[in-house]
């Protein structure tokens, strides 16, 4: 292919991809009247759902990031067949369809699930509770963080870690004071992707936690519920959700850029 034709093909591909990806998001804002947006903001489903979404997604973020960093460190620093197998297992939720994940969670933690009797004896009931929302979000979002963290930890020059040890640092201090700050931009990026996935989680949540206002109805579920009666309300809720996610993306990109140039 001649250079000019190749340039044109690249530009064409970029234009088509960008328009296709932007159009639905733009349509949310462009086709909404101001008073519909206000009605959406005042919609009774919005605030309980937004509060619940923030609470559950930030809890699942902590559940993913804190143990996830340790797990990713172990996988990255123990090359071998076992860690490769563990890594594959940890990536599984990323390819499992959310609906299947919901059924799986129910069959694992539900009253008649694998761990059901054990949980019941301890008075713990998970399905259709806020905890179930957190579990579903943790399950579907963990791979995004784990993958980013494992890749970042693998990139650390081993000599830095060896030198730290010869300077008296324990393996834990080496992890905390070297591995974490050196990988911070990637960890933040992974956490952002993971959080975004949590915020948008629908399929596993609806099957495992249900759709109970104030208890398990997160923003995506509120959009779905509003859609059944009033498309404009659903649109306003969706737009608020997208704006929120977009703001999050911008803030995180800026943080990552600053961390990289620090």
């Amino acid at each position, binding site marked *: 292919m001649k250079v000019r034709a190749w340039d044109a093909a690249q530009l064409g591909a970029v234009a088509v991809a960008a328009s296709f990806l932007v159009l639905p998001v733009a349509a949310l804002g462009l086709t909404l009247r101001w008073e519909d947006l206000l009605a959406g903001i005042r919609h009774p489903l919005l605030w309980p759902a937004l509060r619940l979404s923030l609470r559950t997604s930030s809890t699942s973020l902590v559940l993913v990031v804190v143990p996830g960093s340790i797990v990713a460190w172990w996988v990255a620093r123990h090359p071998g067949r076992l860690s490769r197998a563990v890594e594959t297992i940890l990536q599984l939720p990323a390819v499992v369809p959310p609906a299947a994940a919901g059924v799986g969670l129910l069959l694992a933690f539900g009253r008649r699930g694998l761990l059901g009797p054990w949980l019941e004896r301890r008075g713990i009931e998970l399905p259709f509770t806020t905890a179930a929302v957190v579990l579903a979000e943790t399950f579907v979002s963990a791979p995004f963080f784990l993958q980013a963290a494992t890749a970042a930890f693998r990139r650390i020059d081993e*000599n830095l870690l060896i*030198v730290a040890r010869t300077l008296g640092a324990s393996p834990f201090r080496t992890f905390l004071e070297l591995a974490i700050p050196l990988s911070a931009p990637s960890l933040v990026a992974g956490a952002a992707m993971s959080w975004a996935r949590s915020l948008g989680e629908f399929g596993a949540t609806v099957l495992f936690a249900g759709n109970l206002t104030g208890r398990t109805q997160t923003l995506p579920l509120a959009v779905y519920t509003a859609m059944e009666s009033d498309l404009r309300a659903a649109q306003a809720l969706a737009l608020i959700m997208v704006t929120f996610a977009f703001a999050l993306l911008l803030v995180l990109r800026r943080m990552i850029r600053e961390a990289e140039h620090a």
Partner: protein
Amino acid sequence: MLEARIRRRIGVLDLDVDLRVSSETVVVGGPNGSGKSTLLRLLLGVLRPDAGTISLDGRILFDGAIDLPPEDRRLGYLPQDYALFPHLDVQANVAFGLRGKDRRERASRWLERLGAAHLSARRISALSGGERQRVALARALVREPRALLLDEPFASLDPEARRDLRGSLREWLRTWRLPVLIVSHDVDDAGVADRIAVLEQGRIVQEGTAEQLRASPASPFVAGFARSQTR
């Protein structure tokens, strides 16, 4: 005195080394793949020998039953690219291995001794190759190690800086009279040595002063390695 009689097999390499370093600078030379880096990792405690003993001033670091972790071995280490911590400034790098309230002052004193006090607040990315070496040396020495291990200490420098730093490193090492082990594949590095040991395929094939090695080299590599001492 650093003493090691160790064996370790990794892939095709069968390392079997018997080495003693008193208060002198020993350069372990050898071609790529001869086991130099493996030897350093075994001494540092990052890799476990299959058998043998390692001791430092009579204290056992490894003997099968005892296997001290790197943080308890009191060995200073300078890797090839110096491995300065890029997220910390120069002073924080040197203070990393220290505890207590006066850690910053102690770090500053060592930077001063190595003529690098003016670099204290600099970021690592703003240092030249020679400055990095000084900072790395200060960071290793600040913990008062009982021996110093250096991996290809001049490999990442340009030829001119390499010449200058060989001279100053030699002087610094003489000042502290520590057991110093330098591994290198570069024949010119033999110039900083009091004694040379040549490692080929996991075995020390010859050991001695440059003159001794020059007089009757055991292999073509030894002949080449010892010749540079005359420069």
